[in-house]
């Protein structure tokens, strides 16, 4: 039985254009201005990132709520060798960040230089990009808030 032919590369590529709806549209609009907004659920929880619905019940959420660009790391994982698609090219941490004023945590990255600086419960501050377009990557990363 002859063997299989040589392998070939297959690239699946498309620049998806996503309509985001009113709630995320406002969140992304605020990010473009360098601010972070969540949304309040009917039970009073503040979701960041905001959603059109309460993740626990499916009920529609209410009014937007401004939250701080500082918060607490509730979980983190250290990446020594970033992948090409990762937001940072230098070693960094993935983190769940609960912003001050929010009841849920946002997944993003922390630029802490080295793993030894990472700790659950540490305070971080968002670093915004200079050129913002209204998307999640307008937050370049979070960084340790060491001044406090």
């Amino acid at each position, binding site marked *: 039985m002859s*063997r*299989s032919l040589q*392998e070939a590369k*297959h690239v*699946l590529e498309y620049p*998806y254009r*996503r309509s*985001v709806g009113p709630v*995320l549209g406002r*969140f992304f609009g605020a990010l473009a201005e360098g601010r972070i907004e969540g949304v309040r659920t009917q039970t009073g929880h503040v*979701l960041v*990132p905001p*959603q059109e619905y309460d*993740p*626990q019940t499916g009920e529609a959420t209410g009014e937007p709520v401004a939250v701080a660009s500082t918060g607490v790391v*509730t*979980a*983190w*994982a*250290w*990446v*020594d060798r970033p*992948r090409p*698609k*990762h*937001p940072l090219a230098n070693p960094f941490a*993935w*983190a*769940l960040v*609960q912003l001050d004023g929010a009841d*849920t*945590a*946002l*997944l*993003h*990255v922390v630029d802490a230089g080295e*793993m030894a600086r990472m700790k*659950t419960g540490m305070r971080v501050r968002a670093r915004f990009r200079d050129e913002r377009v209204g*998307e*999640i*990557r307008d937050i370049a990363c979070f960084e340790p808030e060491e001044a406090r």
Partner: protein
Amino acid sequence: MRDVAIVSFAQAPNVRCETERNEVEMLMPVVAEALAASGIARGEIGFTVSGSCDYIAGQPFAFVSGIDAVGPWPPINESHVEMDGAFALYEAWLKIQSGEVDSALVYAFGKSSMGDIAEVLTLQLDPYTVAPLWPDAVSLAALQARVALDRSRVTERAMAEVAARSRRSAKANPNAQLRGDFDVDALLAEPYLVAPLRKHDCPPVTDGAAAVVLAAGELASRSCARPAWIRGIDHRIECHSLGARDLARSASTEIAGEKAGAFTGSFDVAELHAPFTHQELILCSALRMAPSVSVNPSGGALAANAVMVTGLIRLGEAAARIHAGDARRVLAHATSGPCLQQNLVCVMEA
């Protein structure tokens, strides 16, 4: 409820990269073996259902050619879920429960080697605020492991012990991919892959295929000397956002376990679909596993992880323990989604 049992199970050898055979060629012998073991003729099967995923193969409608492996002619009663084959088995169980059919063939296939599976799985995430950052599956599992380490009794040593035990158990599984004896201290001396996960905490990249035959009542008794009777089966999903759920526990597994009757009586064997070491510990806790239970004697997902097939293999491996007379009551579990978002629990008895 009708009495329904898994009456046969077959799987392809799990390998790092199947270079010679396409998915249909991998599936054909597996389907033939499962059917032959059940004694139910191809044309007598009441319902056929499969689980697979287009993004694993990198093309739309990847499942379509899969049905060629069962030779669906004359036309058959057939369905497909874009999920792990374990959930296809659930659909088959429903079909039999509705009384429409008495038997079902369930199969699953996936060649994870075709793409960068950790990155492909990124596309499962919220496409607006999470996926654009491209967190890969290992990174997300590492976040979950951190929460488990911080907030529960999970330790890095316990995780390494899961890895060592799984790969030691896999030595007795001819279809496993990663097997052998590993020293826990040596494993802990290895560098982190994505801290707190080391390489041994993660599953291998695997190509695989599996098939299961289900039958009801007397047909099951005729098809198998020791049918694995499904006494309870249930699955639950929880909210998607990692920042809005408690990653240290598996709430959906707890509910599914309760509904499936996992908390009444003991088990000889449990096959848990835990691709990462800490997930086995979280699942054991959610399912209140007694220390006496033999967990993943097949080696589990840490020994072979053909995405879309692994869950169905857990059901098949657990049932096979009953078929072989090695166990009387078993539990099987399958998962889907990032960080154990969706979980299925099945209790089977001899």
